[in-house]
Every structure is written in structure tokens, then in C-alpha cells.
């Protein structure tokens, strides 16, 4: 333990750094046979290979080229993505897919914490978890989107979806013009994580 500092009549122990705090709990878990170090070593693979926006991009591309799949996806997201071999954590019991149109923009947030459909969209980016996005996007959606580079015409309706329960959301962006005849793979390469969250739209030059 670091040397205590005596301030007036109080003994103040300096606060451990975040790294030291993580080391402490990891070692405590390991000592109890919980294999924490293995879990820590495995985790970057989950992040890089399983919880990636490419999953959502594949879903979107399939929905663009296959109208029957699109119908099933909008009716029951969880069942439809399973057709592509994708699954969600057990407690995410429901996936609601929100379809954009020229007159409608759907946007996802979580004002209370930072919930997302990580198995489809990928782990949320830093700004999604920041206080600014959580506080403002429900009340000043148009301004927030404009500040983030999405300047919507005034006639476009905005729907903001606050993830307060274990239902998860994914935005189905519009298929960009000029992509007729493209393969699913090429279409999927156009789809960005931010378009799945609903803070960006796509064009044929995105990819």
C-alpha cells in the first residue's frame, strides 16, 4: 500500500489507478479459480470477430436484395438474423428492426446507460456512451444529427428509440441509389456501423 498522507487529523490513502483496480479484481478472480486471465485473453477475439458491425451489414444487404427476408426481418428480427447464423445474448430476447425511408430517419440511443444490439451492430462507439449524446439526442435530435454530419431536410420525420428494456434495435438504412445489380457482398461493404445506429445515411460512395 502507498504511504498514507496525513491531512489534518485524517489519514488519506491515495486512490488506486484504474489499472491497479482492474489488476486487483482480476487477481482475486484468478485466485478463486474463475479463470479471469483466460477470459481477458479471449475477449479481444470476441470484440474483433463476433461483435462486429459487419454482422448488421450482412443483414441489411440481404434485406435489400431479398424482399421475403426483409419481411421476416421486420416481423421478427431475432429469428431472421438466425437464418444468417447470427445470434444474440440470451437476455436480448427481441430484435426490432427499424426501416428508414426517404421521409423517415430512425435513431437509436440509451439515455440511462448505453445498451445496444452489440451482436448485430458491434460494441457501441465512444460517443454513443458519452453524456452528451445520451442527454441531448432525445430532446434535440435534429440538431445533434446535424452536428454529427447528418443534415436532414425539415420534412424528414425523426424517431428516436431509447433502449430502456432488453429489447434491442437495429436501423435498416435505405439502399443507396446507383447500386442496382450489386452483389450482397458489395452492398454489405457499403453499410456502416453509424448507419445501423441511425446517425448516418448511405450513398454508393460510402464503401
Amino acid at each position, binding site marked *: *500500500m*502507498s504511504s498514507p498522507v496525513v491531512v489534518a487529523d485524517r489519514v488519506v490513502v*491515495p*486512490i*488506486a489507478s*484504474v489499472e*491497479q*483496480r*482492474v*489488476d*486487483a*479484481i*482480476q*487477481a*482475486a*478472480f484468478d485466485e478463486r479459480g*474463475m*479463470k*479471469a486471465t483466460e*477470459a*481477458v485473453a*479471449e*475477449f479481444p477475439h470476441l*470484440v474483433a470477430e463476433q461483435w462486429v458491425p459487419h454482422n448488421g451489414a450482412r443483414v441489411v444487404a440481404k434485406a435489400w436484395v431479398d424482399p421475403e427476408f426483409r419481411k421476416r426481418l421486420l416481423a421478427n428480427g431475432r429469428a431472421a438474423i438466425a437464418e444468417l447464423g447470427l445470434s444474440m445474448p440470451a*437476455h436480448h*430476447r427481441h430484435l*426490432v428492426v427499424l426501416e428508414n425511408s426517404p421521409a423517415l430517419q430512425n435513431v437509436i440511443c440509451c*439515455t*440511462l*446507460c448505453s445498451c445496444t444490439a452489440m451482436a448485430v451492430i*458491434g460494441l457501441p*462507439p*465512444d460517443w454513443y456512451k*458519452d*453524456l*452528451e*449524446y*445520451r*442527454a441531448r439526442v*432525445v*430532446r*434535440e*435530435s*435534429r440538431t*445533434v444529427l446535424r*452536428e*454529427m*454530419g447528418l443534415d436532414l431536410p425539415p420534412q424528414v*420525420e*425523426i*424517431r*428516436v428509440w*431509447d433502449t*430502456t*428494456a*432488453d*429489447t434491442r434495435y437495429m436501423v435498416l438504412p435505405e439502399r443507396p441509389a446507383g447500386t442496382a445489380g450489386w452483389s450482397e457482398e458489395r452492398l454489405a461493404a457499403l453499410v456502416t456501423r*453509424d448507419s445501423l445506429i441511425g*446517425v*448516418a445515411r448511405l450513398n454508393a460512395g460510402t464503401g
Partner: protein
Amino acid sequence: MDGIHDLGGRQGFGKVRYGVDAPAFHAAWEMRVNALYSLAVRAGIFNMDEYRHAIERMEPRHYLTASYYERALTSLLTLCIEKGLVTAEELQQRAQGAIPLAAAGAAGRSNAAHRERFQPGDLVRVKSDYVPGHIRMPGYIRGKSGRVVSESPAYPFPDAHAHGISAEAEPTYDVRFKSEELWPASAERAFIHVGVFQSYLERA
């Protein structure tokens, strides 16, 4: 609880620090935190509702200045102590310093005694409930009316599940609110959809 975490609609925050291809993590320790709290949930030490509630119980100044993953870490450490897996002294010894923890929690509650089944199109009102424990009702919808869009599968009732109280799983309703009604004359026009647990709702 009406905690500092309940940020929806709070004013005074600046621009979103947005970048295309923004990362989820900024440091290796953040990924370790994510791995470790996930492991703790898998091991049954605590559930996600308890995890969220422990973040909400952080002292407000600490909450606002901590990064996302420091909040996650604080919840993890607090719950491992509260659940008796480790002691605060052991963690302090190992960390060689003081460890900021979340404050003790208040009581939770079970499902509402009378719960109604709603249909898409029904006009509903969010009850004016004030509870000291965990709740998944953002303050900005309290007492407000909206229209039911759809029903989602039953989930464990968070107000109970975060406190180890037995409760029935219950459905959530996707309720559509008008921003102008949530913040009269003080919001940009949009529809705000919120997943609202059945216990929080009554017929309007």
C-alpha cells in the same frame, strides 16, 4: 432512483464528440473491465440489472467525471464486495490504494399489483412513481401519455431483479411519445419511442 445517470433531456451538455469509425475502447484496461464484468455475470455473481443499478448508485460527482469503463469497473468492484466474493480490504491491498465504490442501495420493489394488458394503438400514461431503488423508467416520461406501438416479450422486472426480489417477468410496451409533449415548447419535433415495463403503465 432519480439519479444522475438519468440523462435524457438534461440541458447544458455540449456537442457530441463524434468521429467516423470512433473506437469502442481507448485503453487495454477498458477491454479487461468488459471481459471481467461479463465473466462475473456468466459466473452468476450478479445480473445485468444489479450491474446497471450499482453504476447508478455511484456518487454523482464520481459518475460524471468517470469514463464509461471506470463506471463499469466501479460497479464490478462494488458488487463483488457486496456479494461477499471479496472484501474491500483485500482489493485495497491488491490495488495498493483506495478504491472508490458505489453507495449502498435502497429497497427494490416487486411488480405492480394490477397490471393491464395493452394493445397497439392504446393510449397509456406512465405512472408518477418515485422509487428509491432501481427503475428503468427515464424521468422524462414520468406522468406522460403516449401510444402503444407494440409489445415485447416478457423480461425479468428490473425494479425487483436488481435487488434480488422475486417477481414475475412482464412484457414491455413500445410506447411512442411526442417530444413536444415531453418537453412542452422546449424540444425539437420528433417521436420518442421508449420500451416501458407493464408495471409502469396505466390506461390514459
